[in-house]
C-alpha cells in the first residue's frame, strides 16, 4: 500500500524525528534524530552511534516508533505530524573492507541522501568510526492534523 501524500509530505519536509525504542523491561527511551525517508522501500533511515542506548534497545527489542511533526505554539489546529511504527534493523558494523557490497552501497546512498538533506549541518563530515545506519521498515503510520486523525497499515512484512 502506498503512503498517502499528506503523510509523505511530512516525512519529506521535516528535519527532526523522535525515535522511541524500549528495552526488554518495556522501559521506553526517546531521542531526537536526523533521518531520511526512502519512498521506494518505505523505510526511514537514521545514523547513530553503535554504543547508543537506542541501538542496545533495538537489539533487545526491534519494535520502534518515530514521530515527525510540525508544531505551532499558538494554534493547535496547525499541529501536524506522523508517527510511524515498525521494526528496526541495525546495519552490520565492521571495518569498511569487511562490509558486504550491499551494505557499502547502502552506506553510500544513505550518506548522500543525508548530505543533500542536511547540507547545512553535515557539510563534509564523514561517517564516524562507530556510526551505524538504522533502517525502520514502516508497518503502520498514524497521521494527525489539528484534531483529525488518520492511520494506515502497510503490508511491509517484518517481524510481527
Amino acid at each position, binding site marked *: 500500500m502506498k503512503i498517502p501524500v499528506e503523510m509523505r509530505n511530512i516525512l519529506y519536509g521535516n528535519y527532526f524525528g*523522535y525515535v522511541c525504542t524500549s528495552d526488554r523491561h518495556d*522501559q*521506553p527511551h526517546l*531521542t531526537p534524530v536526523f533521518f531520511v525517508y526512502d519512498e521506494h522501500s518505505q523505510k526511514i533511515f537514521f545514523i547513530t552511534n553503535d554504543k547508543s542506548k537506542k541501538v542496545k534497545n533495538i537489539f533487545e527489542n526491534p519494535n*520502534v516508533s518515530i514521530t515527525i511533526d510540525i*508544531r505551532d*505554539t499558538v*494554534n*493547535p489546529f496547525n499541529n501536524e505530524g506522523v508517527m510511524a511504527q515498525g521494526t528496526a534493523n541495525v546495519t552490520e558494523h565492521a571495518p569498511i573492507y569487511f562490509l558486504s557490497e550491499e551494505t557499502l552501497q547502502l552506506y553510500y546512498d544513505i550518506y548522500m541522501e543525508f548530505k543533500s538533506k542536511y547540507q547545512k549541518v553535515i557539510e563534509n563530515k564523514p561517517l564516524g568510526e562507530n556510526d551505524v545506519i538504522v533502517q525502520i521498515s514502516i508497518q503502520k503510520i498514524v497521521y494527525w492534523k489539528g484534531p483529525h486523525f488518520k492511520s494506515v497499515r502497510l503490508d511491509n512484512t517484518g517481524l510481527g
Partner: protein
Amino acid sequence: MDKGAKKEMKWIYEEIVGRIPPFSLVSYQYSILMQLLFLLILGLIFGFIFNLESISLFYGSLAILVAVSWSLLILQLGPTLRKFRAPLSKDENELLERYKGILFHRNHYEAIPGLAIFIQFMLYLFFYGSDLVENWLGKNPHIILLLFVSLLIWDICYRMGLGIWASVLALWRSVRLKKLAEKRTELEHTPYTELRSLQKLDINNVFFGIISLLLIPLLQSDNFLVTIIVIFMLFITLISVISAYIVSKVPWLPPDIYNLVNESSFAYIGTSLGGVTHVTPVVYVFDGQKIFFNTSKEAKKLKIMQKNNKVAFLIDKRDMSNIYENKAVLFTGEVKIYGLLDVPLRLVQMLQTLSLFIKKYPEYTRKYSTSELPKAWQLTPIIARILVEVKPIKIIYWRGAKQISVPV
C-alpha cells in the same frame, strides 16, 4: 578535611555506650534499642523490689518510650547523611560537608544543649521545691531509685538537646542551600533523591517535636514545665516544617535543564506496551518542581500508560541554523495518572496546574474549549483531559553533540 566527618557519624553518648558490651556487639541501631530495653527491664525490676505503685511504672515506661522514639528518629541522620551523594555544585557540596562537620563535630557540641537542659532541670527538681519526684516515686524514695530516675532524665534531656541541635542546624542548612541554589550555573545542582532525603529528615524532626507531648502526663502537676514542653514542641515542629518547606523549593534540576524545561513549548512522550513503542508530541507545564502533561481520554498513549506507566519524556530546543545550539533533555521514569480520586485529594495541585496550562497555552485553551471540537479534545472541565505527572528516575541531557547523564 575534618576527619571527624569521614568516620562513622556518631554522637558522644551513643559512642560511649556503644563501646560497652553487650551493646558493642550489635549494630548501632540495635544497640540503642537494647540500651532502652535494658532500662525498661531495670525499671520494672526496681519497681518490684521497691514496691512502687503502678503509676510510677507507667511514668517510667512512658519516659523510656519517648526516648526510644526520639532515638529512632534522630539516629536516621547518620546513616542518611553517610549515604548522601555529593551535590554537583562545589558550593553546595561544601555547605553539606560543613553541615555534617558541625552536626557530628569531634568536639561533640551536640551534647551542650542537652547538658544545659539536664542541669537546669535537675536544679529545678531537687532545689526549687518541686514535688515531681514525690509524684513519680512516692515519699522518701531509695537512693538507687533516684539515681535511676536521674539516668532517665539524662536520657530525655540529652535527646531534647539533640532535637534542638539537629533541627536548628537543619534550618540553617536549608536556608543556605536555597541561597546557593540561586547562584548555580549550567549543570550545577543537588540531585533530587538527596533533596528528598533532607526533606525526610526534616519531617522526622516534626515527629520528634510532636512526640514530646507524651511527656505531658509526667509533668502535669507542674504547669510551668508543661508550658516548657509545649514551647519545645512548637519550636522543633515549626523550625522543621519551615526547613522542609525551604528544601522543597530548592530546584532539583540544574539551571540549564531547568530553563530548557521552563521555556520549551512541546514535549514528546514515549510509551511501550509488550515491546511495541508509541511516541507523540504533548503540551506540558512545569511548576518549578513537577512536570505535567495532559492527554485526551481517548488517547492510545493513555491506554498504554494505564498498563505500563514507564515512560520516556523528551523536551528539546531545535534549531536547524545552528545544531551546536540544539539542546534536549530526556527524562525516563514513571508517570502518575490523575484520576477522579485525586480530585478531592489533590484539588489545589490540579487547579494550579490547570492555571499554568491556561497561562502557557492561552490560544490552546480557548480553541480547545469550543464545542465544535470532538469531545475528547475539549478542555472545559479539569477531568475532560487527563492530567499526567512525570516522575523521572533518570535524566540524560544533550547539548550540541555532547551527551551528559545527570543524577536524579
